[in-house]
């Protein structure tokens, strides 16, 4: 039972150590007083306006991420699923491809 989760626990431990390290190392070795004109990320007002382009790119990213969400399990189970898996992935990927095409033609990739 417990050994099933060993991988997850290891992953969590690595992540925790990394997070602590990434915070601790700059404090130890970084410049003592950071330049005043560089604000902390997140210290800006929440009411600041963003260009809509950022939303477009975020949506583009979400679309591709959605693709990865299905493609990774498919890659893991590629042999077991056989030809049915290919059909399912094609049925899934075609609408995603249409979405990418739509965003492209809409000019999302033009900055």
């Amino acid at each position, binding site marked *: 039972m417990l050994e099933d989760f060993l991988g997850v626990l290891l992953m969590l431990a690595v992540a925790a150590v990394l997070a602590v390290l990434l915070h601790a190392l700059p404090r130890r070795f970084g410049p003592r007083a950071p330049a005043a004109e560089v604000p902390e990320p997140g210290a800006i007002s929440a009411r600041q306006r963003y260009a809509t382009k950022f939303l477009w790119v975020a949506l583009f990213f979400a679309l591709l991420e959605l693709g990865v969400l299905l493609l990774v399990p498919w890659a893991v189970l590629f042999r077991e699923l056989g030809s*049915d898996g290919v059909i399912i992935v094609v049925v899934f990927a*075609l*609408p995603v491809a*249409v*979405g990418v*095409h*739509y965003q*492209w*033609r*809409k*000019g999302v990739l*033009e900055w």
Partner: protein
Amino acid sequence: MNESMAVNLDAVMPLLIVGVGAVGAVLLESLLRPRPGPDDGSPRRSPARIGAALSLYSTAVLLAAIATAAGSFAEDSSVPFQAVQPPVVLDGLAAFATVLVSTVGLGALLLSSRYLQKLRIHRGETYALLLLSVAGMLLLVSAADLVTVFLGVEGMCLPLYALAGLDRHRRTSSESALKFQLLGTFASALGLFGIALLYGATGATGFAELHSAFPEVGAIGRVGAGLLCAGLGFRIAAVPFHAWAPDVEEGAPTPVAAFVSVAMRTTGVIVLLRVVLGAFDPTDLAMVDVFRVVAMLTLSVGAVMAVVQENLKRLLAYVGIANLGFVLLAFVPLSEGSVAALLFSLAAFGFSNLGAFGILVVMADRNRGGERLGDFTGLGQRRPALAAGFSLFLFSLAGIPGTAGFVAKLQVMLVAVRSEETALFLVAGFANLVLLYATLRVPVVMYMNPEERGASRPTVGSAEGLVLLACAAAVLIFGLLPNGVSFVDGSSLIEWTRAAAASR
């Protein structure tokens, strides 16, 4: 794959047609769209021509879905998607609802093109969003599993939020979209929590398993059932979950308001019907009590609030809520006879409402006038045909004899009499009196007030005229000869509703 996973695509054929059609509409729109960036000298297509092409394409998609569903209804069979625990079953009820919802979607589509051009908000995405929403509705009406219900509700509503905000430079439209989305998300969360509780109490999400487990479901399951019904109550705008409806329908572009008011409500009622009848127990006393109170509230609040409205879109929204109360009469309690009455009233109120919104679409001008009661002063002299049509649709919504609305109200009132719901019957009768006053104010203004100088004389586009004529014909035929006129397979609407009620 093993045998139990074999699927029957016939069960989702109308849904597949509309869903694939929606993806096709996205593709078509982006292919027809002029390329961004510097003009390379190629001939530019005007937005109007792109819109016309997309409109034709979407019409063909919806007609194909209607034909498929009607064919499936004529075969009189129940087609499950899978042999074991099907998520989707295409039975008579689903086929009937598919035809009804797709027809309303087609009506909203035909009303859109000219209206959107008039308001300068004509975008090709409208058609893809409308088709996507119809696809979600078709998934909902044939749902046989709570997970399908959730997916369908999201599929139906997400495109609608965007459609409501189509006129994004206008404050009311943006407000409508935001309000719709926030309250819609809230309703989704309620429903999802209900589904989770039901799953926790019974270990099942399929309707059949839930139905057999429902008698010993316990308090948690009952809370879950209540939350799920509340989530669906938001979608159909039953009182006390109705507050969003007038605001959203006032702010949204008029064809979208018609679609939300008619198609979404029809779909919501069908799902509620499926859940109560198929997954819960319709004769459960607590549930009947709740539906009785909700029906009374919906009837009276809708009718009373309709009296004070000066904006006709708000008026139609409240009239729609009051008429939903009549539809809900059939839930007290739900039986085969009351389901037939319910389906008839959904169709009758649907066509009357679509027609009434169609008149508002014709009356709209670029500055979004033609929505207030004052804009209709003397319309009887300016445009007699429009005034006569609007009066007919309002008469039907008020339930005046000779119209479809009367036959619908007669049927559901008879259901209330047969189940000896005296109090409910009286509330419905008084609510209808109030509703009569609220709706007849409009013909009074149109015919009895003198014409104003310089008032606009709206013209009717050919697609709009087609929708208005079809709705008027439906209102008159279902009202005067509910048994007399035959459709595809030789049966009248009343026989259709009875067959659909019996087939599930």
